[in-house]
């Protein structure tokens, strides 16, 4: 029984869940976070109310941060990354960018994703027109309490368009995956806009709506039935401006007619890219990436959270677009596997 600490990389929902799960069974953990504070995307990008709980990110994820920061079994290393990693399962050694050296029995990568950068779709006006914003920016407008306003002049938008699949399902820019949560998040944002600004009309332009599972009732149906959000099947061709308002161009596929409709604000429902650091993470940890650039997973049936290298586990959006709830669940599963390894009780795989 080596009982060396488990190295958890990344302090977002998955990393916080893994560290807490390990600490709760008495396992020493080193949590390495490259940013100056814990919380990951929900905290660092200023998310408002989370899907599906409806709790504010600062409360829900903030509580996860609190219980890890105050836990004596978790050694939190902020503004640090793993510079070098070597060894074998049960006896790894990591060198951190701050010079510290960590002995680790196992590692759990909870390195998350990177928001798609909308400037990569210039035809949709982000970076050209100030009133073209991203879902992350709208989340910030709501969570900061300032409300949804046009960045150009601070006015309340009378008409808002949300464009889905920005940076998702788009072979033109090498992003074939569905980012899974943007439909639901957009429905949620649409309802929040309608709640704050009841006179504002919100239109969602979609290719398919994927508010999967139980999100159907709570988001897709509710946004239409209670909040009168309108869904139009059309992938927008371009966003321009007439000098006063934004103009979106596209085809209304149900009417088979071209549309050029004025809007006050256009919101990009940005997708989840592989973490920009994934290539260097793969090199540092000696693990493989899957074809889209996310961290590759082993078989899920025997042991959830395996990478291509024994002793290194992975959880959450590092492996592909993922919800917060599922990231947390995966992190706990990976923590269990890491814990078993550190205590030299290998979990039997289905194949064995």
């Amino acid at each position, binding site marked *: 029984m080596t009982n060396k600490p488990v190295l958890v990389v990344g302090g977002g929902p998955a990393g916080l869940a893994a560290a807490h799960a390990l600490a709760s069974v008495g396992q020493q953990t080193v949590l390495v976070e490259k940013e100056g504070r814990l919380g990951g995307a929900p905290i660092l990008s200023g998310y408002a109310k989370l899907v599906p709980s409806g709790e504010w990110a600062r409360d829900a994820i903030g509580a996860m941060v609190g219980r890890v920061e105050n836990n004596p079994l978790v050694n939190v290393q902020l503004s640090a990354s793993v510079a070098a990693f070597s060894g074998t399962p049960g006896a790894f050694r990591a060198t951190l960018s701050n010079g510290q050296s960590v002995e680790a029995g196992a590692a759990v990568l909870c390195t998350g994703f990177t928001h798609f950068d909308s400037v990569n779709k210039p035809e949709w006006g982000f970076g050209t027109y100030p009133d073209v914003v991203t879902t992350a920016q709208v989340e910030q407008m709501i969570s900061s309490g300032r409300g949804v306003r046009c960045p150009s002049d601070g006015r309340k938008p009378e008409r808002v368009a949300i464009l889905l699949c920005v940076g998702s399902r788009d072979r033109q820019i090498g992003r074939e995956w569905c980012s899974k949560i943007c439909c639901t998040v957009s429905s949620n944002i649409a309802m929040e806009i309608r709640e704050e600004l009841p006179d504002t*009309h919100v*239109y969602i332009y979609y290719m398919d709506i994927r508010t999967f599972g139980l999100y159907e009732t709570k988001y897709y*149906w509710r946004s*239409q*039935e209670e909040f*009168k959000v*309108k*869904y*139009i*099947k059309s992938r927008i061709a371009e966003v321009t401006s007439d000098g006063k308002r934004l103009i979106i161009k596209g085809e*209304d596929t*149900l*009417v*088979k*007619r*071209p*549309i*050029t*409709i*004025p809007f006050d604000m256009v919101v990009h429902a940005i997708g989840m890219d592989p973490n920009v650091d994934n290539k260097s993470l793969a090199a540092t940890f000696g693990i493989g990436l899957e074809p889209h650039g996310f961290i590759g997973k082993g078989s899920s049936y025997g042991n959830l959270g395996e990478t291509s290298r024994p002793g290194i586990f992975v959880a959450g959006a590092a492996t592909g677009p993922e919800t917060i709830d599922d990231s947390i669940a995966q992190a706990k599963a990976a923590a269990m596997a890491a814990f078993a390894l550190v205590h030299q009780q290998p979990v039997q795989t289905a194949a064995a």
Partner: protein
Amino acid sequence: MPIHEKNLIRPENLKTHENLTIDGVNVSGHWSTFIAPRVITDYNEKIEAEISALPGGEHINRCWQCGSCTNSCTVNAVNPDFNPRYWIYLIRMGMESELLRDKDIIWQCVSCNKCTYACPRDVFPEGVMKATAHWLELQGHTPKSKSTIFDEEFTEQVVATGKIEEGRIIRNFFTKTRQPLFQEWLIEMAMRVARHMPVRLGFLMGLSTVIRPRTRGWSKARDAITDYVNEQEVKQRQALGLRENEGKTGRQHEN
């Protein structure tokens, strides 16, 4: 090369000019036919709210365009242009001009309610059809049909007296629709009726044209019905932003 999507070109969008010169180029005649753009340039967001405010239209915002209503529709089987799914979309997105193109077929719904049972989201498409027809009428887009005028005359008499009087219905209907009362078939019918009618009945009919018979104690019922109908009408007209008598042919209740 053949013109693809030729079905998208609408006759009213073809513009041919007898004499037109643009920048010194003669573009007159058939060979210089222009096609007006099909682009939709704005949404009219009022329409959905207006039709939602009319009886039957309340749940229109639930529709997700599955097409179950159109697929189950009795009238659509006969007339493919009768497409409830499509109209619901036009209303929801506020494409008024597109909706008005079909104003003369929307009322053809036969209220079989197959759509009501097929709809997975309880939109109540049959109600939406009724609300839309009502909306078209209130907005003055469709004139009242003769049968509507007949129904109104019938209803007005029942409301006023609790009874109907056939002779009066026919007289008033013919007056309102500006048809001559002395028509050959009508005279023939009246004569045959008169020939076989018992004397007492003929006397009563004659009397009832002079003295209007009423259901005993009707005035309370009349006032209640009148109040309710007026209240609903005021509510609906307000929802559509219409003034008291705008777009409406006068409906007068006798006493």
